[in-house]
């Protein structure tokens, strides 16, 4: 039932990336977790910024690298923006990530592969590959029913393939 098959989205420009953020943000609700992985400079923060804007955050959303977790208030939902690159499993645990993952906001987790065991079972995984200039490939893997439904809806409306 939770068979994880992947979808993809090809972004030719930053505008396309923003469109994907818009489509994903449309479905978002409290307790959703979206992970962002990919090499340095792949565009994880760019996607996060576009996503934040879509859920009504007006202040600047900059890199969470230094303080690890930044919290913002969106129109309806709070956003928890994390960069777990420097975290070990042990410390991530200590930061009380569960309170964010199962809380009343949306989590965007950059470099999530560093803490895979701590992630909620149900989540939307985005893997970004840099193809040149502003061109990106998004590999989208839904884990859990609600995310599978999201993806299928996005596929049916021709957003992702």
């Amino acid at each position, binding site marked *: 039932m939770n068979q994880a098959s992947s979808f993809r989205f090809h972004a030719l420009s930053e505008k396309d990336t923003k469109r994907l953020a818009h489509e994903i943000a449309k479905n978002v609700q409290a307790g959703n977790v979206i992970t962002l992985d990919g090499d*340095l*400079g792949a565009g994880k923060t760019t996607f996060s910024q576009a996503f934040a804007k879509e859920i009504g955050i007006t202040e*600047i959303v900059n*890199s969470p690298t230094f*303080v690890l977790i930044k919290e913002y208030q969106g129109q309806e939902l709070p956003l928890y923006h994390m960069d777990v690159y*420097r975290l070990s499993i042990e410390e991530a645990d*200590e930061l009380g990530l569960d309170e964010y993952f199962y809380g009343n906001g949306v989590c965007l987790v950059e470099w999530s592969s560093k803490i895979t065991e701590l992630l909620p079972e149900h989540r939307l995984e985005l893997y970004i590959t*840099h193809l040149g200039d502003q061109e990106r490939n998004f590999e989208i893997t839904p884990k859990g029913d609600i995310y599978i439904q999201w993806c299928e809806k996005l596929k049916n409306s021709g957003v992702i393939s």
Partner: protein
Amino acid sequence: MTITILAVETSCDETSVSIVQNGKKVCSNVVSSQMETHEKFGGVVPEIASRKHVETITLIMEEAIKQANIDAKDLSAVAVTQGPGLVGSLIVGMVAAKAFACALDLPLIGVHHIAGHIYANQLVHDLEYPLMSLVVSGGHTELVYMEAPGSFKIIGQTRDDAVGEAYDKVARALGLPYPGGPYVDKLAQESDAEIKLPRAWLEANSYDFSFSGLKSAVLSVVNQAKMKREVLNKAHVALGFQNSVIDVLVEKSLRAVRQFNAKQLLLAGGVAANKGLRQALQTRCEKEGIPLLIPPLDLCTDNAAMIGAAAFLKWEKQDFSSMDLKSEARLPLENWITVD
């Protein structure tokens, strides 16, 4: 009357305690750096940073008191960095400062880390308001306008990576050690040519910064070289990157000084140690007749003396913190102190 403040700073990976008098005179400023430990990991590891703070905090307090040659009964207050920073690190300094204050019955003063960086300048210069401050560090890139003492207005900030962070990430891409800033700076200083990289000016009237595009540009240069199996001249990339960063920082700072009629430009934060940036600012400010203030290197990087300097603002207002003061990873600067 002499007001003697013991200040504690543990917002990131340096454990520091300082004794400062009247917000101006540094009696001691002891910094225990964990750099070597974190170098091995290629970045600050929060849990390890917190552990080192616990290991050294009272030793550093003792050393600061000893070096200042004062008696604990001469102290007027205890100051501590409340934020922003790494929560686990902040907490260790916070509870140590509270325990010390409580044991000696001294008032506690919570200090904003960035206010500290700016006020590091007060330890070596006389400040004249209104002034403009460029704060550049591993976690921050901000242009702060100050109309009067204690009045902080952020007129520009980074929209993505902080300058120091961009340096670290570029260093990582170039295969240079952590922390990347000094290595990139050194390579750039020695380089005879540069690879031209883009500058992010953003909207014409904006004082904000953006470094992620530049970071991507560096990565694409690195990747292209790899694909073509060419040996990349790291120094050329370093100089190109550094010139791009500095150009934007210098231009925006000077424009801000002019527009706000600031009497001085202050440089603050760890990246103020960057030679290229200092030289560029010095040259331009001299040319335009703008007084430029840069603290000595040991007051640019994280240290407790700057916390003691900023704490004096609150001492003057007798604005003390209660013992349930909370460490905040994202403490806002603008309302940190109430301006009359």
